[in-house]
């Protein structure tokens, strides 16, 4: 399909039929190349575009049997139902709250870590710290969830420490209390990813010309001044790009994690859009309604991405598009 499309597009650009034949010759010459590219396009149609077409379910009344395309239209009723859904308020609040905290606290930490790592005098120590800091990124959320559940249980290590310090009198089962969930989700996510997210900053800092630092030293700049006026401005472009990407992915980042940490007792503060879609859609079989909920999320995510892109563009001229 797309081959025809592109051939047509090229053919329009070429006015004479003579050129058309030339195009065919060129296509024939690169038949292997085209085949390789089109296999990729075919995959994308099969696994990205056909599911996108399935979004129409959000506007239909589909009960899970037969071809979704033949299901009766439902108009905007599912979206109206979202508006009237009692759980939706909690779900949206949790999604935005956890994502927002992860962004606001989790985004600057890798930058600060990279800045301080750069100040270490021993290169060898620097490398060791770096390698260790990547480690949690390679653990799955299942493993980390298992560790957290053990640590945070009523007889776990966290209660041992806090009770030993006399900060609390009675053990708390942290994952059974909704009030602690956001803190647990945000801090464990930061623990897992700060080292990994710092890689790009570390590499960007390594490519700053040493002359800039020498010049700053001659001008009498101290340690913090060099961080502030040399290092930070030099990685500003990298920061902007990663910030846009982080905002765009903001609403996606918590599915694997929250599925592990969520339980029935903390649900009021742990249910997010993704887990809600899973629960309502797969477990309860309300396909159309949950597709509508998922679509609302996609639209919000897209708006956030465009917003972040335009804001960073205005602030410092670097943007994704």
């Amino acid at each position, binding site marked *: 399909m797309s081959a025809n499309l592109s051939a047509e597009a090229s053919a329009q650009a070429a006015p004479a039929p003579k050129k058309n034949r030339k195009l065919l010759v060129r296509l024939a010459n690169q038949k292997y*190349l085209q085949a390789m590219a089109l296999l990729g396009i075919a995959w994308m149609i099969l696994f990205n575009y056909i599911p*996108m077409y399935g979004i129409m379910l959000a506007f239909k009344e589909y009960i899970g049997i037969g071809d979704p395309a033949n299901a009766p239209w439902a108009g905007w009723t599912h979206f109206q139902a979202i508006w009237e859904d009692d759980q939706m308020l909690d779900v949206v609040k949790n999604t935005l709250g956890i994502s927002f905290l992860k962004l606001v606290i989790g985004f600057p930490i890798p930058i600060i870590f990279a800045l*301080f790592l750069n100040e270490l005098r021993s290169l060898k120590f620097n490398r060791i710290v770096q390698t260790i800091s990547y480690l949690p990124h*390679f*653990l799955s959320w299942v493993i980390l969830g298992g560790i957290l*559940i053990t640590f945070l249980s009523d007889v776990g290590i966290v209660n041992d420490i806090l009770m030993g310090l006399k900060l609390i009198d009675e053990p708390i089962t942290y994952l059974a209390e909704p009030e602690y969930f956001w803190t647990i989700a945000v801090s464990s996510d930061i623990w897992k990813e700060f080292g990994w997210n710092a890689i790009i900053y570390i590499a960007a800092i390594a490519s700053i010309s040493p002359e800039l630092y020498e010049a700053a030293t001659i001008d009498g700049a101290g340690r913090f001044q060099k961080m502030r006026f040399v290092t930070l401005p030099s990685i500003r472009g*990298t920061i902007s790009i990663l910030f846009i990407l982080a905002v765009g992915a903001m609403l996606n980042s918590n599915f694997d994690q929250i599925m592990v940490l969520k339980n029935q007792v903390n649900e009021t503060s742990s249910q997010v859009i993704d887990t809600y879609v899973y629960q309502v859609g*797969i477990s309860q079989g309300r396909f159309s309604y949950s597709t509508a909920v998922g679509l609302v999320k*996609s639209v919000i995510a897209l708006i956030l991405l465009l917003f972040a892109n335009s804001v960073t563009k205005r602030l410092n001229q670097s943007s994704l598009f």
Partner: protein
Amino acid sequence: MLKRNRRTLGDALFDRFNVLGMLLICFLTLYPIWYVLINSFNDGKDAMSGGNIYWIPRMFSVENYTAVFENAGIMTAMGITIAKTLIGTVLHVFFTAMVAYAFSRRELIGRNVYMMIGTITMFFGGGLIPTYLWYRDLGLLNDFFVYIWPALFSFFDLIIFLAFFREIPDGLEEAAKIDGANDFKIFYSVVLPVSMPVVATIALFHGVYQWNDYFTAVIFTTDETLQPIQTFLYKVIAQSSSTQIIGNMSGGAITRRVTGQSIKMATMIITTLPIVLAYPFLQRYFVKGLMIGSLKG
């Protein structure tokens, strides 16, 4: 010497605190894994009744590991994980690299349209339910290949490959072309062998994804013989009553000195070990790969 004098007291103090801070970070990062490790090597019943173990095993035992290796359910799950990681990674790297190579060639007719088709997939998707229903129609539910085909390609990885392929000198390909090789042959016998750094990067990223992914199985399979080890652990960990599940599954093990918790610890270590041992060696590759992907992509 002059330089040394310039190092003020504040500077020296800063260095000390910086090193201390970094050591603290390393400790906080490593300790949870250390905790699991020592508990996996401790007698299960003792760990349960004698209070928490913090630094070293109190009653050293390898019985947890023996119990895990004797457990048929865990071993099947381990086999699925190894199979999906090996097959999935090889096919993903080969397929994505192949498409990326075609996309990297300037003379490819329709290149801009193809790139646009790909870029859209990075920012928009169908979401869980349409995907689920489509896989159902494709017959991928309860099929091992649900781990492979949907993960065969990634446009994000394609961009990393693309940036690398652009750096390859044209002369290499020209020489092969004169020898009469077609584009596919050029790709696998000329381009792929010189692209090992980026191949290693993507293989690591995808290998980790395949190894760690637990949710594909939760959503798309109900057949327990198809579930990978991470899904097995997920069911044990998140769906509570872990002692019962593991107790039942480990059969005879329950009469021994192992507990649900101690088997869980040993399984977690076995599941984590391969990656923890592999990534430091691949570090120099993935740092470079990430840089290429983020700055040029």
